[in-house]
């Protein structure tokens, strides 16, 4: 293969002779590819900048409007209006991660270190398939099947563990609570976290693992000593990727969650804090004028939240990488 590629190149390269200054054709492919790669890199920055500019320009009428005008023509004063939704967005995503991360790490560990090879591969495929299910399908499942099915559990939790603030309040009669939304979101972020953790676990140095086992460590001790320290930045990166997905998820939350505009930590009631993405999706079709601007400005807030979360993730990963012993 390499020979076939290089031979015409060298023969043609010899023809012009030295000193003509013609570029070395061998390098042409290199330069073209470099151009492509750089173009792609620039393109993504341009897209990001354009999206940010769009949000700023279209949202600015609401951001800089007189509060009285927002109350009469919009949804109300901007900050008090958007704050509960921002809280709901972060709260739902955190709940989803609390549910998803232990399971995802468990699955990844099972695939990489415990299961027989014959089982590991199909299981990996199935997990990846889960990522291909459209969010609207998750939404339908959540609202039609999961919510009614989970209602008895919620009633039990409220009756027996109601003294814990999380489970207090009147239980929703439909099961369309933030707990249900978190379960649906957890299902959606599970494949992302699992497949990334699996890759990281598989790269744990064989020698470390064997050394641990040779010193008489059990399998769990080996994982604890050799795999986790090595994989920690990878796990954090995977979690943050999942968090990004959970923060921005719209359709499933819109369909599953009974969202209102309030801040509460109660998990089982009818009055749950709605997320920004779901609020925008619900209200945009009927919005006009200042209301449209206000919803777009809410989108800007979501954009900033996601950006901040990702920056924190980068910072953690880079800080941890130095002394994780990965090298």
């Amino acid at each position, binding site marked *: 293969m390499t020979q076939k*590629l290089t031979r015409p190149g060298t023969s043609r390269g010899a023809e012009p002779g030295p000193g003509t200054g013609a570029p070395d054709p061998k390098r042409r*492919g290199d330069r*073209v*590819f470099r151009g*492509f790669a750089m173009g*792609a890199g620039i*393109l993504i920055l341009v897209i990001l900048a354009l999206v940010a500019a769009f949000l700023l320009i279209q949202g600015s009428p609401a951001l800089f409007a007189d509060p009285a005008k927002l109350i009469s023509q919009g*949804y109300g004063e901007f900050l008090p209006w958007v704050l509960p939704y921002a809280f709901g967005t972060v709260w739902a995503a955190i709940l989803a991660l609390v549910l998803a991360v232990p399971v995802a790490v468990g699955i990844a560990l099972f695939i990489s270190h415990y299961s027989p090879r014959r089982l590991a591969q199909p299981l990996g495929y199935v997990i990846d398939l889960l990522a291909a299910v459209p969010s609207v399908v998750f939404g339908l499942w959540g*609202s*039609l099947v999961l*919510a*009614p099915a989970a*209602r008895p559990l919620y009633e039990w939790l409220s009756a027996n563990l109601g003294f814990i603030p999380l489970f207090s309040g*009147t*239980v*929703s*009669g*439909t*099961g*369309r609570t933030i707990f249900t939304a978190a379960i649906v979101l957890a299902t959606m972020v599970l494949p992302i976290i699992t497949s990334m953790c699996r890759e990281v676990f598989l790269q744990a140095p064989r020698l470390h693992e064997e050394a641990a086992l040779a010193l008489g460590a059990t399998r769990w001790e080996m994982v604890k000593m050799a795999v986790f320290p090595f994989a920690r930045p990878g796990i954090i990166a995977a979690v943050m990727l999942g968090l990004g997905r959970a923060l921005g998820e719209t359709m499933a939350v*819109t*369909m599953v969650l*009974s*969202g*209102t*505009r*309030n801040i509460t930590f109660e998990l089982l009631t*009818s*009055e749950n804090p*709605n997320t920004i993405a779901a609020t925008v999706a*619900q*209200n945009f*079709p*009927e*919005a*006009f*004028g200042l*209301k449209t601007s206000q919803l777009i400005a809410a989108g800007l807030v979501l954009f900033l939240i996601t950006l901040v979360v990702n920056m924190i993730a980068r910072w953690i990963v880079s800080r941890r990488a130095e002394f994780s012993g990965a090298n």
Partner: protein
Amino acid sequence: MRIKTIATAALVTATALAFAGCASNETPAAGGTTAAGASKTLTGTGSSAQKAAQEKWVAAFQTKNSSVTVNYNPDGSGAGRSAFIAGAANFAGSDRPFKDEEMGAGKFAGCAADSSALNLPVYISPIAVIFNVDGVTDLTFDTDTIAGIFSGKITKWNDAAIAKTNPKVTLPDAAITAVHRGDDSGTTNNFTDTLNKTSPTVWTQAAADTFPAAFGGEAANGTSGVVQAVTGGKNTIGYADASAAGKLGKASILVNGKPLQPTADAASAILDNSKTIAGRAANDLAYSLERTSEGVYPAVLVSYAIVCQTYKDAALGTLVKDYVTYIASADGQQAAATAAGSAPLSSALQAKVKTAIDSVK
């Protein structure tokens, strides 16, 4: 190397195609009649409550008038009104008429300088109070009780207020989950208006598209979302277009001691018992709904077609006139009743709307 290049090229092409796809989605700018040829275009924007009916009307009208294209964008009443003011829509669909201060000659870009707008009621739909309670098939409420339930003041099904109007029903000792619309909607506006007009002491908030957050309760997205939440839940109650209620129980509302179901007749009677807003032009049929009349089901959504008294473009005026005449005719109203489950206008009102449309130029 080669494969990578091809992959990159494919990626670039795919991206380009994706962008091209976006562009082709954009709707053509709303305009009036096209001067070229015999084909004419009529653009309406507004109420999503009218969507199913408008689709039926557009299809029937275009079948009869093959040279005419009618576009109705169900972007919402507010969007419809602002598009009509800006002249981007030739007529608007709206769940409320223009207010006094919004009316006036010269305020509408598509109308002649000396012309104001006409609000014509064309779509009436009863809003049902739907419920899903184990073992209960029929319920009767007075409006105070309904307001109490949806404002979170009545929280148990066996509350004395509910038991009083339902002596024969065994009510469970269970919490009520009251489901409302989470998105802005004309249904919410008319439902809250009903409660505010009939039980002002319990329902202290004014009518609004957004359900008052202070009253709490469960939120669901869209009519179908509410119906589905009530159906899938237990001991639930909600409000939705009567046509969308499906197999759910529909509560009767007590009006002057008589229980009324959300039927077409009881709903359309509301306009025959209401007066048009005082001080408007004779042909402006903007009603101030009288929700407490004898024999009238109070929770009714009345949606309007808003047109110019005189259009800048006379040909366009004729076109609007033809279309709205069909909508308000017995045929058109029957078609909407079949397609959307609306309540047809009474024949007296059909005649009134006809007179009003005939004055459009």
